[in-house]
């Protein structure tokens, strides 16, 4: 704020060109991305190797997909802490289904069910979250804390806490498939982002969702079905988390309920905020969230590739959230 002081006093006198901070704060994400890329090109060994690109794409996909869902929930003025746990739940369910005797007997149907059923379960979790928030008026943090705590527990019970490994090339395509040399899930992210962006920009639901986040009272008084819209946001977020859970399992050809989606809520919230989503609701920059996810992923990768410990990486992420929120708040005409 001391900086503002100076600008105000100087403003009327200096009529010449002046460095405009608002540009930085408005496009902070892009600047951050460029900075990280430059840093890596200079410092990180083998950064420009195609393999690095593929690794990062395949890893950023899950963050990006969940971040898109999180963006919608935050846009309603809520937050979803259960995304990681829902990933674990769906990730634990899938191998249970396609390794079952029934699926062995009917491989195609088994494969389809192992994708559909976990996602349906995830959607159901979303209905639960949304109902708690909108029908019972539970604070979103508290409402989604229920699955945050219990979801992973259920997943562990389902799998007896065992690591499930499997070989199922068809299912693994979700996480290891390549089209034109690029990871399959990279395309998935692009498709999902475009679809959700389209929904937010052109449909009545999208418009109503932003209105609910922007001013819930006003939206309600204008006849917006506030409760339905909110439930919708949580359901979409949960469904996307379920899908992300499947991708994680497919990448590893193994499912460890204790680890799938661990701390994903932090990554997703960070990505959404870095992407320009306002925590108080009313804005849903979908492509911003993707950009945010890429930044989060690159930060993780940079620290890892340069031998920095995981714990430090966590602190770095927390720092990014704080910085992003600060930049949002500091904007001033």
């Amino acid at each position, binding site marked *: *704020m001391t900086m*503002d*002081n100076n*600008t*105000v*006093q100087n*403003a*009327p006198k200096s*009529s010449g060109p002046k460095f405009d901070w608002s540009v930085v704060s408005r496009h902070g994400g892009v600047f951050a991305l460029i900075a990280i890329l430059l840093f890596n090109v200079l410092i990180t060994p083998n950064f420009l190797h195609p393999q690095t690109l593929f690794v990062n794409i395949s890893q950023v996909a899950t963050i990006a997909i969940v971040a898109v869902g999180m963006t919608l929930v935050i846009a309603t003025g809520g937050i979803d802490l259960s995304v990681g746990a829902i990933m674990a739940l769906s990730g634990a369910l899938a191998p249970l289904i396609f390794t079952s005797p029934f699926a062995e007997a009917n491989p195609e149907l088994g494969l389809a069910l192992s994708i559909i059923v976990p996602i349906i379960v995830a959607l159901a979790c979303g209905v639960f979250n949304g109902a708690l928030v909108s029908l019972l008026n539970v604070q979103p943090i508290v409402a989604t804390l229920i699955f945050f705590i219990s979801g992973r527990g259920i997943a562990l019970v389902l799998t007896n806490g065992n690591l499930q490994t499997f070989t199922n090339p068809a299912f693994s395509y979700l996480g290891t498939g390549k089209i034109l040399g690029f990871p399959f899930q990279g395309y998935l992210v692009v498709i999902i982002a475009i679809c959700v962006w389209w929904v937010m920009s*052109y*449909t*009545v*639901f999208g*418009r*109503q969702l*932003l*209105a609910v986040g*922007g*001013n819930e*009272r*006003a*939206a*309600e*008084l*204008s*006849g*917006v*079905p506030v409760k339905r819209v909110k439930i919708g946001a949580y359901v979409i977020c949960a469904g996307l988390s379920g899908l992300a859970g499947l991708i994680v399992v497919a990448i590893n050809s193994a499912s460890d309920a204790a680890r799938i989606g661990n701390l994903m809520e932090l990554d997703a919230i960070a990505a959404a905020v870095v992407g320009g989503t*306002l925590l108080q609701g*009313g*804005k849903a920059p979908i492509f911003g969230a993707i950009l945010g996810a890429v930044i989060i992923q690159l930060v993780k990768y940079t620290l890892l590739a340069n031998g920095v410990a995981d714990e430090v990486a966590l602190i770095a992420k927390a720092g990014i959230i704080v910085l992003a929120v600060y930049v949002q708040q500091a904007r*001033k*005409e």
Partner: protein
Amino acid sequence: MQHLIEMSGIKKSFAGVVALQNANLHIAPGEVHAIIGQNGAGKSTLIKILTGVYRRDAGEVTINGTPSTVSTPREAQDAGIATIYQELSLVPLRSVTENVMMGYEPRTRFGTIDWKAAHKRTREILERFGIDIDVKAQLGSYSTAIQQLVAIARAVSLNAQLVIMDEATSSLDDQEIEILFSVVRELKKEGVAVLYISHFLDELYQICDRVTIMRDGQTVGQRVISETTKLGLISEMLGRDPEEIEAAGMTGLGGGEKAEPGSSLFEAENISTARGLKDVSLTLRKGEIVGLGGLLGSGRTETARALFGLDGLKSGKIDAHGSSGQIGTPAEAIAAGVGFLTEDRKREGIVPHMSVRENMTLALLPKLKTMGMVDRKRETELVERFIKSLGIKTSGMEQPIRELSGGNQQKVLLARWLALEPEVLILDEPTRGVDVGAKFEIQSIIREYVDKGLGVLLISSEFEELVEGADRIVVLRDGFSITELENPGVTEEALIAAIAHHHEEAAA
């Protein structure tokens, strides 16, 4: 004589759109100074520059002769400038005390907040305004007018040299305005200057010493109020000939050859709600304006809420022709052809981040829906039409509504409901914050719709608007409908008498 505040050559644009181009303001110590101007003239922007909400692009500001270093609202407060912004900026979920004391709480020896002292101090501050309320209750549980008075009380309590009131009286009734004025006069006696923004020119003659007139971001004049006429001020403000204005007349709601009342749109019989309605009956027919008269807290807004399905009925019934079922939610009310323009623009009206277009069509979305999508072509046409017909001042329909001036936001919200083509429109203070010119236009537009069959329930704290606009006035008191006055023939005196008479009766 040295000026308390001197602003000169102030320029400000927002993303290329000019809001102020050459604005000046000179306030002498201890004077009551008014700023007038049309909606969007730049009044609020000018004071926000003074109080550090915005940064100026050019110009000089001095306080007591020294260049101002104020760059945040907090610094302005500490420099002795207390402000009540046009958009109430209090925290409705917090107690009255917390709102009044915010940032200046008394402390105990241990550095914690001394609540006992805080409550006591708050009660004292409010007493000066004749407000006797539970200071521990949530501020939001009180009416807009009380909230407004609380905001004013807070500002006055800060020991300022200058108190700025941006349209502070717009939600107050005559009695409350009197209280406010007596406080203003007292402040003046203590040597505190008051900067007063209002669209009610009559008020200026009661309390102001001088007036600064703004038009299109420029100061076009500064006058000693006793040397001006109302018509002169209006003509300077609008930049038009006085004769032309005089010919047009001042209220637009009246007029229209009186059609015989149409079929009934709804009948409310002996309704009561948990929110303070005891026993209200009224009918509304096609093509008429029914006014709700009464003092603050008499149940006007509560009646509107009940009719719109916001508050469930405890007893009585509402017969809405056209909809057989009970109206239980706003969505159902809207589907049944009822619209409700609420009085609290900021909290219950605008969605700040959304554009003018999105705000205007928010209630209309179900009708603009084709296969889940918004029909953008129809939407754009409609919005264009209303921006033109209501004369909304905006840089374009994609401009976020929060960037519009208060009066222009109000017009967008009115358009939100007119676009629905409702059968019944409940208007709670429809011309609040709207300048004299636009007020006339809005009233004429409402009258036009009424002539085509719309039924309007009008709530207004301006008796003039009620008396001249309404075909009938239902007078409310303490949650009861007590009498009904029918036009032609109603005068302001008659209305005041009707309200007061019953009031005295109650007191006796």
